[in-house]
C-alpha cells in the first residue's frame, strides 16, 4: 500500500502559495480563483500519483468541498459549503490537557512551525456508505503527541471541536450535543496513518472541511475524523464520543470500516464512490488492513464496532 508521499512539500511552500492567492479568497472559496498553485494541484493530479492506489482516482476539489457532513453548519450535505462563510479559522489555538506533563495551549502557527507538512492521499469512507479519495496536506498526529508529552498513564486521546454558535449556525440548534467530541486509543493515535490535516489539494483547509485543523483517520468511518479541533485531552479511560452517545446501537467507539459488521441503517458491504455510478465493495479497514489490523488482534470487532 502506497500511503506515504515520497514528494514531501514543505509547509512554507504552501504558505507562499497561499499568500499568492490570498487576495482573491474571501469567504467564498475558490469560486473565482485562477491561481497557478491551485491549478497545479487540481488540473495536474499527477502531483499525487505516487500516493494514489491504482484502483483509486482523486475526487475533485468541488466534490470534496460541496458534499460534507459537518453538522456544525447544518445537517444537509450542502450546508457546510453554503453556511461556513462566516467562520474564522485564524487565529487558532489548541489546548492540551489531561494526563500530560504540563497542560498548555499551543498557538496553531507554533505547532505548524514544529512539524513537517506532507501530502497524504487517503480514501475517506463515510458510515453512510459513500466514499471519496482526498489529497490532504498535514502531519502525523504522533508529532503533536510528542510535543504534548503525555504521561505513561494516558491510554486514550479525546478531541473536541470548537463551539461558536454565532459562526456555526448548525450549533444554534441542539441536533447533537455540542461541542462535537471524538476519541482514539493512544496506539491508534500514534499510528503513522493518523494525521492532523491542515489543507487539501494544496489549499488551506476550507471551512466546510474542518478548518484550520482536523483529524484524518482513514481506516475508520468519517465521523471519527473530527474537524476544527480546539482541545486534545489525554485520558486513562475510554472517552465518550458524540455519535456513540447519541445512538450507541449504531455507532461504536472504534468505528473501524468493516464490511462484515452490519449497521441498522446502511449496508456496510458496499459503498458509492462519489463520481462513480456503480457501487464498490467496501474493503476491510477501508483498505488499510496491512497498516492497522495488528492494532485489533485481540479485539472482537463485531462487539467493539
Amino acid at each position, binding site marked *: 500500500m502506497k500511503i506515504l508521499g515520497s514528494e514531501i512539500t514543505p509547509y512554507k511552500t504552501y504558505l507562499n502559495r497561499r499568500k499568492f492567492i490570498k487576495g482573491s479568497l474571501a469567504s467564498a472559496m475558490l469560486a473565482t480563483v485562477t491561481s497557478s498553485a491551485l491549478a497545479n494541484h487540481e488540473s495536474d493530479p499527477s502531483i499525487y500519483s505516487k500516493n494514489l492506489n491504482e484502483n483509486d482516482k482523486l475526487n475533485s476539489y468541488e466534490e470534496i468541498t*460541496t458534499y460534507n457532513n459537518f453538522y456544525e453548519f447544518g445537517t444537509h450535505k450542502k450546508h457546510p459549503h453554503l453556511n461556513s462563510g462566516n467562520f474564522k479559522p485564524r487565529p487558532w489555538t489548541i489546548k492540551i490537557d489531561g494526563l500530560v506533563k504540563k497542560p498548555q495551549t499551543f498557538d496553531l502557527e507554533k505547532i505548524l512551525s514544529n512539524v513537517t507538512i506532507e501530502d497524504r492521499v487517503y480514501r475517506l469512507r463515510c458510515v*453512510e456508505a459513500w466514499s471519496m479519495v482526498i489529497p490532504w496536506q498535514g502531519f502525523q498526529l504522533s508529532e503533536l503527541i510528542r510535543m504534548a508529552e503525555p504521561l505513561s498513564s494516558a491510554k486514550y486521546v479525546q478531541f473536541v471541536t470548537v463551539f461558536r454558535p454565532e459562526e456555526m449556525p448548525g450549533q444554534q440548534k441542539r*441536533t447533537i450535543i455540542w461541542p462535537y467530541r471524538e476519541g482514539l486509543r493512544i496506539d491508534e493515535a500514534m499510528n503513522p496513518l493518523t494525521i492532523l490535516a491542515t489543507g487539501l489539494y494544496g489549499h488551506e483547509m476550507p471551512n466546510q472541511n474542518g478548518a484550520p485543523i482536523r483529524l484524518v483517520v482513514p481506516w475508520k468511518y468519517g465521523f471519527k475524523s473530527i474537524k476544527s479541533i480546539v482541545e486534545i485531552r489525554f485520558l486513562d479511560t475510554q472517552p465518550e464520543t458524540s455519535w456513540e452517545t447519541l445512538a450507541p446501537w449504531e455507532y461504536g467507539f472504534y468505528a473501524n470500516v468493516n464490511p462484515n459488521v452490519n449497521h441498522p*441503517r*446502511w449496508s456496510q458491504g*458496499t459503498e*458509492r464512490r462519489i463520481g462513480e455510478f456503480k*457501487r464498490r465493495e467496501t474493503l476491510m479497514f477501508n483498505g488499510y488492513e496491512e497498516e492497522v489490523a495488528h492494532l485489533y488482534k485481540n479485539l472482537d470487532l463485531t462487539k467493539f464496532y
Partner: protein
Amino acid sequence: MFSTRNFNRSKPVLFILILFPSLLWAYQFVIGDLGVNPIEKLMDELGLMALRLIIITLMITTLSNIKPFKSIVVLRRMIGLFAFYYVCLHFSTYIVLDHFLDMQFIIQDIIKRPFITFGFISFLFLIPLASTSTNNMIKRLGFKLWKKIHYLIYPVAILASMHFYVLVRADKTEPVIYMGIIILLLLHRMFKRLTRPQLSQ
C-alpha cells in the same frame, strides 16, 4: 368558487404541476445537475415528494368535511395516483440505479434494515390502492369493500413517515412534522367516528 366543476377544471394544471418535478429531476440527472451524489439526491427528492403527496390525499379527505371544500375530494384520486407514481420512481431508483438489480443484496437490505422494511411494506400496500382506483373497480368491488381496501392508506402513511424518520440521523424536525400531521389527521377521523357513529355506516 369551490365547485366540483372548478376543481375538475383545475385538474390539467395540477397534473402538469405535480408531474413537472419528476421531469425536471430526470433532466437534471441526465445532464449531471443533481450535485455530486446524484443517485442519492434523486432518491431523496422522489421519496419526499411521494410522502408529501400521500399526506395531501389525507388532508383532502379532512378538508372535504368542511362544507365549502366538499368538492375538493374529486382531486384525491389523481393525487393518490401521483403518490404511487413517485413511490414507483423512488423504488426503481433504489433497485436499478442504486443497486444495479443486485436482487440478493436488495432482499437482504429490505429484511435487515428496518427503515427499508417500512418503506417496502408501505410500497406494497399502495399497490392494491392504485390498482383499484378506477370507477369500474369501485363498481366491481362494491363501495364498502373498496373503502375497506382504501383504509390501507393509513398504514401506508404511517410506514412512509417512519421510513423517513428512521433514515434521518439527527435533527428529526422534518419527519416529526410529517408524522405529527398524519397523527392529527388520523385523530380527527377517529374523533369523527366516535362522535357521529351513524355517519360512518
